[in-house]
């Protein structure tokens, strides 16, 4: 039987990571790619994989030393308690800010496409409360939810993409090989930040049934995500054009608007396609709330993981409401990702890993 042991399977980890990476950032991806390298932007996710693999090796390389432990438990073993305390809470604050900004971006998108007259606060709070409802049931329920949502997210998306690719203008991609290597490097780094949810592995590895398979699971999720990103960029470029992708704030939504379904019963199908992102953002926000709550519970050594779920909601709401308008959210979101996003992806895990190896703390798996 399936017991309440708070552990999740390898396939659940893969699905969770894929859904977490498939967030609002994907809607902006073609714009970023078009800005940096133009029509060959679709190669960026493939190059970004190199950065992604480095992140995986940094993070999972570190967690591999501490079986069944999360960042909260193993950091004090590596560095002095004061520094460990700062690292742990910095991570929690980072998660709150990222989830908050992600949520605000999402609310702006919902406001634009679905509910132009509804106050943002209502959209934000409703999503936060529904996320909290899931999170209070623990990581097992969250992982099972992810396994169900993946159908709701990707099946409609595949259908839409199929409709688009048959009517696309492939000349948009030509001529090939016109791009500067430096731009590709910079672009790949920026795109690699869309893999940010890999940092969840700092907590998630400790909750896995088979933590020894964490690296493989993360790499598989990473490769799948890169392929999805390549497809999304390619389809957007051939669907609405590279220049339009640069100009539009949400090029993927414009792409959905442009799709014409033969004999379809619905019009303005981009609204229907929002389903994918509502579900995906839900998973991201839920994970954000869950991990911050887990950090709080473990630091305070509470038995229950969901004690901090409700107190986190006002914090996330505050962060989400902080930017004044859409332009400011976009700016905050991009800047935060660019300057702060990478810290827990590579530098901090790498430093901790080096210290771990020097001090020879933790036992590596067989």
């Amino acid at each position, binding site marked *: 039987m399936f017991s309440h042991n708070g552990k999740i399977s390898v396939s659940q980890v893969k699905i969770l990571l894929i859904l977490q990476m498939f967030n609002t950032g994907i809607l902006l991806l073609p714009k970023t790619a078009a800005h940096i390298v133009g029509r060959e932007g679709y190669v960026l996710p493939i190059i970004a994989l190199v950065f992604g693999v480095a992140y995986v090796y940094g993070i999972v390389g570190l967690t591999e030393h501490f079986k069944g432990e999360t960042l909260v438990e193993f950091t004090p073993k590596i560095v002095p308690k004061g520094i460990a305390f700062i690292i742990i809470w910095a991570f929690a604050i980072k998660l709150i800010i990222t989830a908050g900004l992600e949520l605000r971006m999402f609310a702006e998108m919902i406001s634009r496409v*679905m*509910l132009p007259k509804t106050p943002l606060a209502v959209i934000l709070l*409703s999503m936060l409360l*529904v996320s909290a409802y899931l999170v209070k*049931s623990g990581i097992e329920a969250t992982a099972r*939810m992810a396994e*169900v949502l993946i159908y709701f997210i990707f099946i409609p998306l595949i259908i839409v993409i199929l409709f688009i690719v048959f009517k696309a203008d492939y000349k948009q991609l030509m001529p090939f090989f016109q791009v500067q290597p430096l731009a590709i490097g910079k672009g790949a780094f920026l795109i690699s930040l869309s893999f940010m949810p890999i940092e969840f592995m700092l907590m998630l590895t400790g909750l896995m049934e088979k933590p020894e398979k964490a690296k493989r699971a993360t790499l598989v999720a990473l490769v799948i995500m890169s392929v999805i990103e390549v497809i999304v960029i390619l389809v957007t470029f051939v669907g609405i054009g590279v220049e339009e992708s640069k100009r539009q704030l949400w090029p993927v939504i414009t792409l959905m608007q442009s799709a014409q379904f033969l004999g379809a019963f619905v019009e303005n199908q981009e*609204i229907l396609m929002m389903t994918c992102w509502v579900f995906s953002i839900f998973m991201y926000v839920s994970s954000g709330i869950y991990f911050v709550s887990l950090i709080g519970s473990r630091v305070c050594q509470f038995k229950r993981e969901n004690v901090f779920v409700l107190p986190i909601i006002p914090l996330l709401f505050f962060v989400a409401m902080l930017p004044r308008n859409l332009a400011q959210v976009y700016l905050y979101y991009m800047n935060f990702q660019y300057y702060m996003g990478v810290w827990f992806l590579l530098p901090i895990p790498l430093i901790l890993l080096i210290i771990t190896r020097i001090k020879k703390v933790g036992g590596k798996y067989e």
Partner: protein
Amino acid sequence: MPKEATKNIISNEDNYHDKNNKINIQLSKDLAVNIQNIELLFKNCMDVVKRQVDIGKDFPFKIYGVYVDGMINRDILEHFFLGRIIDYKNLQASVEREGTTPSQLIMQHFSATFDIKETDSMDAMVNAVLSGDSAIFIDHSEKGLIISNRAWPNRGVGEPTDENVVRGPKDAFTETIRFNTVLIRRRIRDTKLKVKMMSYGIRSRTDVAIMYVEDIVKPELLEEVMRRLNKYEIDAIYDSGYIEQLVEDSWKSPFPQTQATERPDKVASSLLEGKVAIIVDNSPFVIVVPTTLNAFYQASEDYYQRWQIMSFTRILRYIVSFLAFALPGLYVALLNFQPAMLPTPFAISIAASRAGITFSTVVEILIMELTFELFREAGIRIPGAIGHVIGLVGGIVIGQAAVDANIISPMIIIIISFTAICSFAIPDYSLTSAFRLIRYLFIALSAVLGLYGFLLAMLIILAHLSSLESFKIPYLAPYNIMSENKFNDLKDTLLRFPTFMQTRRPIFARENQRTRLRLKIERVQQDVPPGSNSATTNDNHAADDKERGE
């Protein structure tokens, strides 16, 4: 009367019932004491027949029989028990010669019925009487006899009323527990099919049978079922619905977490999948645990007809069940918030049909939903012949009048009627009831936040279902644990794969007992020497599983 014996006489009926309402005294060797106790226990119970009889002609030996009038088969008692012994000459001499007790002698030499047993417990004797057996107290014996000759009124085995099939067995469970266990036993002629009996309810002492296949059921599941059954003490249960609510995982959920069925074939197939059946006396519905959402979409008929048509029906059931809870909410969301999603001619047509309607769409939907619930409830309560009229009056007369009076639009009538038909296409009534309830969540959130609210309602329900379990099995299995059991459980979900492909039992069964079908011819050719019989034993099954690397 011996001094020791008088201690056993009860002065007050309340004094010898313990807190669980069990009679905590033993039988006395002195028949007079036992008679006094029985008289006191059954004081003012005029339906209980009590009689002392002398058996043996020359040297009479006293026995005292008790039974409830109308609950026993008197032929067995009178012809096959009393008739054979009453004229015997000297029972005492036979007892001394055989070196045995009177009760053993009667049981072994004079009773012409197999189902007779000894007991020294007054509680067992009284319980047997109340259950429809006959109790015989014997003088000079500390043990009494219980003759199983129940013959209470029953309506026999009928046809299922809620789970009809076009093709397949037509028998259904009834209110008599023994009939129900027989209906299952007839389908699984295996000694490993076990029946554990227990009584439930301090006062009702209702018989409850727990059935399982010993080598297929997971021991931890059986343990959990027993633990939950023994968790509460209740005064009485009148239907399996009581047990269902006492053993379920989450009382807050509107979704059924056990499967109640009136079909013996469904229970038999569930037992062979490693599930446990709980049969309650006086209830024609047998509970099967654990269950999953997917199980509610599986009808018995799915396995008796061709897989293509039944797979199509399955998909249809999933679609209509979505519509059953989502359609009114979706209509509210689209009409109030996202009318641009509707094709223009259709949107114009709806707008035209709503011209002159006083109420908002939400109020319209709620009026119709509640009216429909009223019709449904009235239809059940009103006597049969008039009940049909209610449908006509409600559906045609009131509906048409409401449209003419501009209270509701024709589109609402279509939406609500279609939703109702969809909800009746779901094979399980409990699931339909859950959908009836969550429909209002969808309407409420869609009314406030449009399609976004509708999606939030979907998330709430999915989050709820993801966290829900039935006896520690995820409720959404196998959809959210696909890789378990090597993806085999998916062969009986949205699509019903052909029977020959369904080779493995689902996750409920023990891991070494997952094979349920294999090619017999192939095995005969490979393993069995020509001329010898091919044995299909469980050892072979286990070997198969071993070969598969389990």
